[in-house]
């Protein structure tokens, strides 16, 4: 049966019937649920906070009900995430599908996507890059609503004074990612 289901996912992808492929990827923080459309990576859910059924139902409603578990479609995402968590990959080379973010949020997330590995920006700087310097709070909301965390590095956005701010995956995870990237240098 497992082989039949695998074959079905492959054939669905070949025939353009696989609108959302998903799988889980192990991480040092627990399993991540990752999902991609034919356009690219569309969703990463944090280990601590996601409910699989709820996440998949959301993807079905927002993108397409043709949602299938298809690990093979996400091999490249898994490989790059593995390398990133090992500190061996500094820049993700993955096509992204931005459709779950609109307007100012999307602009803010695209600005976040340009922050280099090991660097940080303030919420104010992100608001400015997104076209509205005064929308600092909205920039924070955009971070919180980031559908593709880790790959779109909202963990690199801090408060102006250098305080950590918030993180959807929890502050210990934000700290750990910044340490991995050498930003916190273990001084905390």
């Amino acid at each position: 049966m497992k082989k039949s289901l695998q074959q079905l996912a492959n054939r669905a992808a070949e025939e353009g019937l696989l609108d959302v492929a998903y799988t889980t990827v192990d991480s040092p923080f627990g399993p991540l649920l990752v999902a991609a459309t034919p356009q690219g990576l569309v969703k990463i859910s944090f280990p601590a906070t996601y409910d699989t059924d709820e996440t998949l139902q959301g993807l079905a409603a927002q993108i397409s009900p043709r949602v299938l578990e298809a690990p093979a479609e996400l091999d490249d995402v898994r490989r790059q995430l593995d390398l990133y968590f090992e500190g061996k990959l500094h820049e993700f080379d993955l096509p992204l599908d931005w459709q779950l973010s609109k307007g100012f949020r999307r602009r803010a997330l695209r600005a976040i996507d340009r922050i280099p590995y090991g660097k940080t920006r303030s919420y104010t700087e992100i608001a400015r890059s997104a076209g509205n310097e005064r929308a600092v709070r909205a920039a924070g909301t955009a971070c919180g609503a980031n559908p593709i965390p880790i790959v779109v590095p909202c963990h690199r956005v801090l408060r102006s004074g250098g305080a950590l701010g918030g993180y959807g995956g929890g502050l210990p995870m934000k700290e750990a990612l910044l340490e991995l990237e050498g930003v916190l240098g273990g001084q905390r």
Partner: protein
Amino acid sequence: MTALPPFQALLDEHAADVMAVLRGAVGRTDADDCFQETFLAALRAYPKLSDDGNLRGWLLTIAHRKAIDHHRADGMRPLPVAEPEELAGTTAEPELDAGVWELVGALPPKQRAAVALRYACDLPHAEIAAALGCSPDAARRSLHEGIKRLRKELA
């Protein structure tokens, strides 16, 4: 209208039953092909499906069509069949018991097909006859023989 569940949920809940019915209808060797065809057809039609009240019935209806296509491809006469969308929600749900379907799968081909088409797909004798390319009397006989044999094995 409630939102359609992610297609994976249909697979998780019904794939095993669909496979069991198809094994009964076309035999173990060809069941996988019919299984693939069934779910690819379902996937194709799924986003436009308006009635999600009986997704299981809808899937089994498609499986029944694929089983008939299979028998037809084996040189049987064609049989007009309604589109699955029209039947969704109205199809009687067959009572499924994987153990029984294993036994059905072990019947000789004609009996196996007749039993599956009758009890999994809810087809009348005339349509079973058309699907199998035999007379209604012959279809009735295959069905009767098949049931007799199942009774014996279950007794």
